[in-house]
């Protein structure tokens, strides 16, 4: 098992993929290391949210993803 990182919206283009698997466990520092530099730069922007196991983190730097968790990188939204 691993942690699956999902790249949403424009982050999908920046990453050049829509998801990737990395080794568990995964914390904030590990996430920044695991993604391409332009994606890591976006992640540091306060307008970019991170969800883990279906819940948006109020403090993304407290990320602690376990085996089998999905981590979603969520840039500013635009619906409707």
């Amino acid at each position, binding site marked *: 098992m691993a942690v699956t990182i999902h790249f949403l919206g424009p982050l999908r283009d920046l990453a050049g993929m829509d998801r990737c698997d990395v080794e568990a466990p995964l914390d904030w520092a590990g996430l920044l290391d695991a993604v391409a530099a332009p994606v890591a730069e976006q992640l540091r922007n306060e307008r970019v949210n991170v969800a883990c196991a279906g819940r948006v983190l109020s403090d993304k730097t407290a990320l602690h993803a376990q085996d089998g968790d999905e981590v*979603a990188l969520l840039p500013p939204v635009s619906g409707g």
Partner: protein
Amino acid sequence: MFDIRLLDVPFDPHAAADRLAAATPDAGGITSFVGKVRAGGDVKALELSHYEPLTLPGMRDLAETARLRFNLMGLVILHRTGRLEPGDPIVCVSAASRHRRDGIAAADFCMDHLKSAAWFWKRELRGGTWHWIEPRAVDHADLARWSEKNSPV
């Protein structure tokens, strides 16, 4: 009747409003808003992506908040995903209420949240290239109205 759905194929928003009206005979009014892809401009297509674990649960939470806040008797929120063509409906919000102001306010409230506080990402095909769309400042200002102390409703 509370019908909250994501749709990956074109839909008829008027049929959705008719079903709501039929299901809520005690309502005094049905308020509907339909957002669609503008036709006649230089946008050739629109694509909406979402994130399954968050998007629909977030829309259901929004519907429950609106139900309680505006005392709704029914609510339909239908939102497209995938590729849309000019003229296609993107979103439909229909609210059934005993009195008109609650329904009108509920549709306004739901749309403001769907525009800039729901888990969707939108891009447009213009001049042969895809461009990601970010919410405008006015979308955030519209959303903020609902949390201000002097909120209209």
